[in-house]
């Protein structure tokens, strides 16, 4: 998945979890949970939706990589230093 696809996937899932969020104005390094006011259940829904959308398992240890738009994009597009194991 390239960067553009990853960004689109993340935005899609975020807009489901927080329908009223203005994602266009979201800075790449803004903290997603704080900025979009996601509580732990919202965040879990985000992880769940994203995992389903991109078809890869996301473990709790990966959560910090989903902190911002930039880090999440890097993580999903596979450009992070830790390779992701696929689980379908």
């Amino acid at each position, binding site marked *: 998945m390239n960067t553009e696809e990853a960004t689109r996937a993340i935005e899609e899932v975020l807009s489901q979890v927080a329908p009223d969020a203005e994602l266009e104005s979201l800075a790449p390094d803004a903290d997603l949970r704080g900025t979009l006011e996601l509580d*732990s*259940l919202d965040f*879990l829904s985000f992880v*769940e939706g994203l995992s389903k959308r991109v078809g890869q398992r996301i473990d*709790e240890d990966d959560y910090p990589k989903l902190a911002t738009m930039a880090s999440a994009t890097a993580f999903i597009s596979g450009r992070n230093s830790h390779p992701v194991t696929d689980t379908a």
Partner: protein
Amino acid sequence: MADAEMADAEMADFLMPVLGADMDEGTVVEWLVKPGDEIHKGDVIAVVDTAKAAIEVESFASGTVEQLIVEPGQTVAVGTVLAKIAAARRPPGEKRPAEKRPAEKRPGEKRAAGKRTAVRQEVSSPLVRHVAERLGVDLSQVHGTGQAGSITRADVERAAAPPAGEQPVPRPDGARRRATPLARRIAAELAVDLAGVAGTGPDGTVREADVRRAAGAGTAVPRQAQAVPAAAARAQATRQVTARLMARSKREIPHYYLSDTIDMSAAMAWLHARNLELEVTERLVPAALLLKAAAVAARTVPVLNGFWTDDRFVPATAVHLGVAISLRGGGLVTPAIHHAADLPPFELMRKLRDLVTRARAGRLRGSELTDATISVTNLGEQGVELVYGVIYPPQVALVGFGKVAERPVAAGGLVGARPVVVATLAADHRATDGYTGARYLTAVSELLQRPEDM
């Protein structure tokens, strides 16, 4: 109410219920039944709009719908007769007015108890019945795949119209126009009558797009103007309800406050280990354990679980845990998780997610809004270290959890970094003294040291 029942023993009045401590009136948004329909106690039969949210209201009686008196769109005072129900033959004492005190009103239990014996024998556990009740599944229609044909939770969930859009199990409320919560909300905002909208979803379910299409085409019958307040009016009304309730709490209740910093090392380690094994849909958040501990501790210290009414404390017979949920766009609701102390953490987690989703979609049930016996606010989710709550009258205690965060903790002469949470208790000094409150927080702390036992 009592007089009316005596005068006409065969007919029960379905009244505009009290769905919150400060509710004066409500608007009938939708009837889910029509005259002639057979209903059972606990069935959701109407949707009522209050200042806070649209609420699904359950019937308190079994029988046949005789007459719908209040039209959708009409706003009437609490206690107004909304419908007449011709009562089925009932054992004496079963009939009860709609406005019974929360502690005495537990439609879920009645419904489970009222199931046919044959069905009950096939069901493997109370948990399955809980799940069936929550999902609105008629257990007599479910094929059991468990041991000796018993019905498992998976069977119930399969039967309960999964999001994938399979054919749902037929429900008794055939008159109901099926619509997604989003479609209902959009319909309200656009003043579209769902009855006039053709649904394109599974089983004719009306979806958001159908509503928008109907609104755009101008084919839909417009609702009466006052049926559903616009979002801004709703936000203001919600604010006013909260304002009145909280002012009453602070005016009437002599609060006392306690706090305790609880070591979360064991709980977080246990959670982390469990979550590693689990698919994301099954994972637990710390809140699930905190709520579980709060509920079980309320059973340990029952004088904090109940209501202050008529100058005395009336204990509740079960722990229905109110959970403060902030709504997107502002506002707060505190629906109850029924029998929270009896649910394993995984089931509590499931209920919590379901409750939050429905609260935000405006699809809570009347019993959920009125049954809470003790409440929890988990403002730690928003990053605060501790929160001292304001009690919801007539409850007598409110438990607060701050953020679970690593802090320096001294243990055995050494300082180390450990995850901790500050738990607080705001309690009604009329009902209990600080000593009792301290016992409660100690119980919460001890439970969280043994997460595997919860």
